[in-house]
């Protein structure tokens, strides 16, 4: 059964003549234990889909279901126990004046879970940080360590699903490799389901089983990552993304400037 199911998701900001529809009939399903990628350029709506699932927007139209249960408009406690999110920028997502311990204890306090100290130690060990780090403030951590804390904070409620919004784009390549390995390990160990948003196809190809390509609020292509690795995808926009992540070439940039409009792609 599908762990995450998104059916005909539409979202509009503004009203009347200012209305701006940012999502158009987005549909996809993610199986339990699967890692699913959403790629596309900025403004394509990929993060918006995540935000709808995380309950940060509540005026969407369509049907969202998690683990077979249809989501309501209101964010409830039960959903937070199932779905957690890791944000892009570990420099912005941790409170600068809260220690690691405070950050990790807060979700436990909100959900009335006991045995906090032991849980914090366990989760720090799980994400590969020494337990002494619980007394540190974010400014005493490197970027990679901060992202580990952010992942620990998401995992401390033992969710089934992690929503990952560009989890490595603020990190160096060498640190990115560590975090990607950690995410891969955690998924296998805890049977987590991932929905990963990124613009780096290398990351998707590494971590995900399937990927949806978004452009201007629509899913334009849906393929197995095996379809990206080593061979050329059929859809022109996907092909452009793949080529661009391989190398820079003068011709491609010219093509990019004359990129076909969405209407042409749909045809």
């Amino acid at each position, binding site marked *: 059964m599908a762990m995450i199911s998104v059916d005909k998701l539409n979202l509009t900001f503004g009203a009347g003549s200012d209305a701006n529809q940012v999502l158009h009939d987005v549909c996809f399903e993610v199986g339990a234990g699967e890692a699913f990628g959403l790629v596309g350029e*900025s403004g394509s709506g990929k993060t918006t889909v995540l935000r709808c699932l995380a309950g940060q927007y509540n005026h969407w139209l369509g049907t969202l279901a998690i683990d077979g249960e249809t989501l309501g408009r209101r964010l409830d406690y039960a959903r937070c126990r199932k779905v957690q999110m890791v944000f892009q920028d570990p420099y912005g997502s941790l409170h600068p004046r809260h220690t690691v311990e405070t950050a990790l204890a807060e979700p436990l306090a909100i959900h009335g879970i006991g045995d906090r100290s032991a849980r914090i130690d366990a989760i720090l060990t799980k994400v590969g940080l020494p337990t002494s780090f619980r007394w540190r403030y974010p400014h005493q951590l490197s970027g990679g360590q901060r992202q580990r804390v952010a992942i620990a904070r998401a995992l401390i409620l033992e969710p089934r699903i992690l929503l990952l919004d560009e989890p490595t784009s603020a990190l160096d390549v*060498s640190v990115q490799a560590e975090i990607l390995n950690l995410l891969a390990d955690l998924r296998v160990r805890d049977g987590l389901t991932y929905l990963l948003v990124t613009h780096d196809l*290398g990351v998707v190809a590494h971590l995900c089983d399937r990927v949806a390509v978004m452009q201007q609020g629509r899913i334009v292509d849906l393929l197995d990552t095996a379809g990206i690795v080593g061979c050329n995808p059929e859809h022109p926009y996907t092909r452009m993304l793949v080529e661009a992540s391989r190398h820079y070439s003068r011709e491609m940039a010219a093509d990019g400037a004359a990129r076909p409009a969405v209407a042409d792609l749909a045809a």
Partner: protein
Amino acid sequence: MNTTAPKLHVDDLRVAFRTGEGLVEAVRGISFDLGQEKLAIVGESGSGKSTVGRSLLRLHPRSAQVTARAMQFGSTDLLTCSEKTMQGIRGRRISMIMQDPKYSLNPVMRVGDQIAEAFLSHHRVSRKEAEERTLAMLEAVRIREPRRVFRLYPHEVSGGMGQRIMIAMMLITEPEIVIADEPTSALDVSVRLQVLATLDDLVGQRGLGLIFISHDLNLVRSFCDRVLVMYAGRVVESIAAADLEHAQHPYTRGLLAALPSVDERRERLPVLQRDPAWLAA
């Protein structure tokens, strides 16, 4: 690469910062020449690559100690010249494109006026002429409606457009050297390609030297001519971009291996194992 005298000659550049805990050496003796080419400086955060770029323009605070055997730009010695000379060079003959247009553009000034200001501060021309120049420059960086964009504020433009506005501002004075500090890391692939193409054309057409500071090895490999790999304030390897595949130094090889690739799927990414001996190398 051309064979004429280099535009810039740097020999044994060292930068140290005075901090509460004593002197911290950020750059520990690097040397390079720059001609009419695209030279990349790559390395992780903290390796000193941006510090090198900033030393060339003397943008460091007083707490920095910058020393070198030579830092020669044409006939000017960048180490010893007066602040007045420096002002004639900074933004006029050597300019720097910063990483993030969101923070480096003035939020309360129209973008067109900001670009024109860069020109006016180095040339005695009328406001009208500066405006004409600005519009031409906006067109050169492939902004479709220069007149409309001229009147926008920074928050009204997208990241890619903001970066092209920065590039326009830095190139309007027709500098001889452009230092680009991670100019595309805030942009996504398709926009990145266009910004790179703009830079590429300008290097080709105007014959300028480009120092491209980046941590993206994949990009550097296909975009630049030569690569300096920095680790802990030193250059550990200098190599032609096309030969990056055959890099010798374990650090360069480690960085390349850690990149997730669309062409090959691996169970685990090899994590860089740092060797203390590299610090001394």
